[in-house]
């Protein structure tokens, strides 16, 4: 009864740790997976170098994050190999000619991951093509543009989950909140005849309002009756999805020229402007995402509400004793989480991903948001970087699917694996025999039950 949260908040690290987590994630973005950490450490001053290496090999956030990434990539490679009959057949005579098996495996895996990289960050061929005048500069930026397009909604849903986490609530309902958000945003987008500019603003805010409504329900239920938000948000996810599928085919919503389940398209005046011309998909949503990250960081660390929120998350009983209204905070947390997820929903229909409602318009952003929040260690800027990584995986996954024939599901596997390893630092530590330094800080959330 009394214990839900002392150990429940996933985040009890000192503030300085935030910095470490960010650097960690920032570096993993650029780091090539094959280079182990610390290999290039300076050796000129043995004592200092030794120290540096030791620290690097200790189980800190940075190392664990990086190694989790490596582990996930290795498991992904194994999956690719065992699911390829041709490559697998070379393993039947591995004792007589091991080079066959190794070469074919290497070709398969390295091509797939190279495509993942080219699709998400940088494609050397496009670059040389640009230098030679074969293609325009857009082709060079296309991977980045794709990555940012996928990143934007994930930032919002990731922030939504992270904010709730900080207040001691587990918002599994980002998916549902984003769904209602997408509905509100789209309805405002094609039903309201408003001038450009204002129309966009109204549509984006409508999405936020939709999310807020859907976040308010589990919040108020939690505060009034103690009903667990995990259960209620799961249930509301499905209710939202069914509502969406029902709504799409109603008169006035469904595209009159179509018989399948698709709504009318959002007016041009309500669409987020593209940042790099019409050929590249990146849109203003990513700017809003950065803004939202800053706002959430400010809210958490600088505002009274943020303080109350963290206090409630750390220990509701103590917070109540200190005169903080826990019920009010719970409701506010869920409303804010809903607003953020709803904004993520707006991004899906007002940006370049889609311009009309379909049953799958929200994709998986809500569930991915949970992973993003965990990977970002429930810190706003960490969430932003984690979303970047996930966006890159999505964008690269598309290219991997079309060029290497590796289905997009591998990306889901990679994402899930990364988070599993992140969530269990003790496992990563055991696999790599890391020193136990500061490991206590890495302890992920102890469970808090229903």
């Amino acid at each position, binding site marked *: 009864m009394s214990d839900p949260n002392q150990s429940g908040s996933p985040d009890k690290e000192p503030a300085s740790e935030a910095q470490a987590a960010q650097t960690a994630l920032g570096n993993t973005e650029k780091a090539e997976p094959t280079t182990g950490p610390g290999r290039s450490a300076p050796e000129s001053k043995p004592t200092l170098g030794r120290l540096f290496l030791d620290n690097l090999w200790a189980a800190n956030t940075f190392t664990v994050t990086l190694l989790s990434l490596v582990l996930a990539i290795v498991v992904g490679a194994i999956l690719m190999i065992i699911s390829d009959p041709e490559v697998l057949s070379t393993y039947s005579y591995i004792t007589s000619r091991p080079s066959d098996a190794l070469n074919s495996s290497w070709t398969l895996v390295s091509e797939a991951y190279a495509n993942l990289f080219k699709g998400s960050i940088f494609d050397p061929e496009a670059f040389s093509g640009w230098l030679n005048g074969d293609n325009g500069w857009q082709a060079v930026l296309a991977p980045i543009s794709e990555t940012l397009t996928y990143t934007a909604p994930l930032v919002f849903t990731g922030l939504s989950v992270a904010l709730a986490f900080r207040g001691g609530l587990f918002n599994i309902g980002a998916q549902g909140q984003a769904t209602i958000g997408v509905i509100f945003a789209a309805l405002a987008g094609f039903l309201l005849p408003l001038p450009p500019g204002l129309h966009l603003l109204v549509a984006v805010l409508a999405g936020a309002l939709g999310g807020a409504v859907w976040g308010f329900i589990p919040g108020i239920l*939690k505060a009034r009756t*103690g009903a667990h938000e995990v259960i209620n948000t799961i249930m509301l996810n499905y209710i939202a999805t069914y509502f969406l599928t029902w709504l799409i085919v109603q008169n006035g919503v469904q595209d009159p020229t179509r018989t399948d389940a698709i709504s009318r398209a959002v007016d041009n005046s309500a669409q987020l402007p593209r940042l790099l011309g019409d050929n590249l998909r990146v849109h203003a949503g990513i700017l809003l995402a950065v803004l939202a990250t800053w706002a959430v960081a400010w809210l958490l660390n600088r505002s009274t509400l943020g303080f109350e929120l963290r206090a409630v998350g750390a220990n509701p009983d103590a917070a109540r004793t200190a005169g903080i209204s826990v019920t009010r905070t719970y409701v506010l947390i869920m409303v804010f989480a809903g607003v953020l997820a709803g904004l993520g929903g707006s991004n899906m229909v007002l940006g370049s991903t889609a311009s009309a409602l379909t049953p799958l318009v929200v994709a998986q952003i809500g569930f991915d948001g949970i992973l993003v929040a965990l990977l970002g260690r429930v810190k706003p800027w960490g969430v932003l970087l984690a979303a970047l990584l996930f966006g890159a995986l999505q964008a690269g996954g598309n290219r991997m699917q079309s060029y290497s024939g*590796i289905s997009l599901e591998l990306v889901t596997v990679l994402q899930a694996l990364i988070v599993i390893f992140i969530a269990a630092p003790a496992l990563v530590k055991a696999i790599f025999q890391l020193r136990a330094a500061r490991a206590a800080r890495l302890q992920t959330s102890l469970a808090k039950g229903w």
Partner: protein
Amino acid sequence: MSTMAVPDVAVAPVDEGFWTRGRKVGLTLLALGLLAAVLFGALATDQQARFTLSDDAAGAALEINGTIGAILFGIITIAAGAALLAGVPKRWFLPVLGVGLVGFVLSFLCWQVSAAPTGQNFMPLVNIIRGTFILALPLIFGALAGVLCERSGVVNVAIEGQLLMGAFSGALFGSISGSVWVGLVAAAIGGAFISLLLAIFAIRYLVDQVVIGIVLNLLAVGVTGFLYERLMQTNIERYNSAPRFGNWNIPLLEDIPVLGPALFRGNIFLYLGLLLVLVIHIALFRTRWGLRTRSVGEHPTAADTLGVKVLRVRYRNVLLAGVVAGIGGASYTLALYSFTKNMIGGKGFIALAALIFGRWNPTGALLAALFFGFADQLATYLGAINSVIPSQFLAMLPYLATILAVAGLVGRVRAPAADGKPYIKG
């Protein structure tokens, strides 16, 4: 459920003057009854609403005039509501509530059946009952998996993943070996594999159990989807054409009217599911294993003091849960359909809802699963008769019901006290 209750807003006290929970429920029921009698009665037509005792329109049937039926059953609900409002002894509460709800559903059906297009004013009961059980089957297995897990104190949100992995490995190994039994065993192992991950991360590495459950679901979706594209899609013959269990008719029982053809001409999974409910119920409340499981789920420290190996019990139960859920997944691929990507499609979460709605009790979970299955089947039926009720709203019903249950409007539900809390010896 109330482990996270916020004490500073009083959870509506059980006896608060005149408006006890019974009276509130009674008032709600009264309103529902009025709605049924007036609205459904007005909308129903004079057609006979026929509830046939067979698969189709033919044969014997229970008949009632649509309008009369809708009003009559509405009045029954009103009466039940009024009885609760007047105050009945506590042990009568559930039966009276049940009568009221059944009256409401029947009133609704009278309206719908009588208002169906001419020639379709019948509801084939055998069909409905059989469909209810088929649709409830994965929920029953899933909810039982939840019971096994959560009664020992490990939250199981990974039911979806366990079902999916079971369905996948059942289809894969069933196809490769060409034997349903190999498929069944493989399905059980597949489900247990996800369970093993859940157990290791939740028990050994103390990861938040809800978090790891959600992530494992995604992992299962990813791995099965990936292998489906890479293996099954490229060679359907070899990897995705599992043999299927046929229907087994049970002598004597299959001759019972209505129930016989609906229930006793099913496949192995139907019998296995019902049997498991019985076995787990008895085992949980009547055996030493059950007592230990429950004690570990309620108060692991006390259990440990008495010499129960808390972690071992938890590992064993979580693995068992995976086996049960894996078999539940096979009830798709080894009996009904071939494997497709993400084919469980949220049934694992409805199973979770059934578990909670059934108050962490095997029999309760069965009833909840049947209720959800009925809602599902009803949606199909209403779609077939062009009902004005959108099927999506009926599909929402299980989720809405669960929210109401959890919020304490239909009676408090309480999880095992140590559910979700890792046990650290010391």
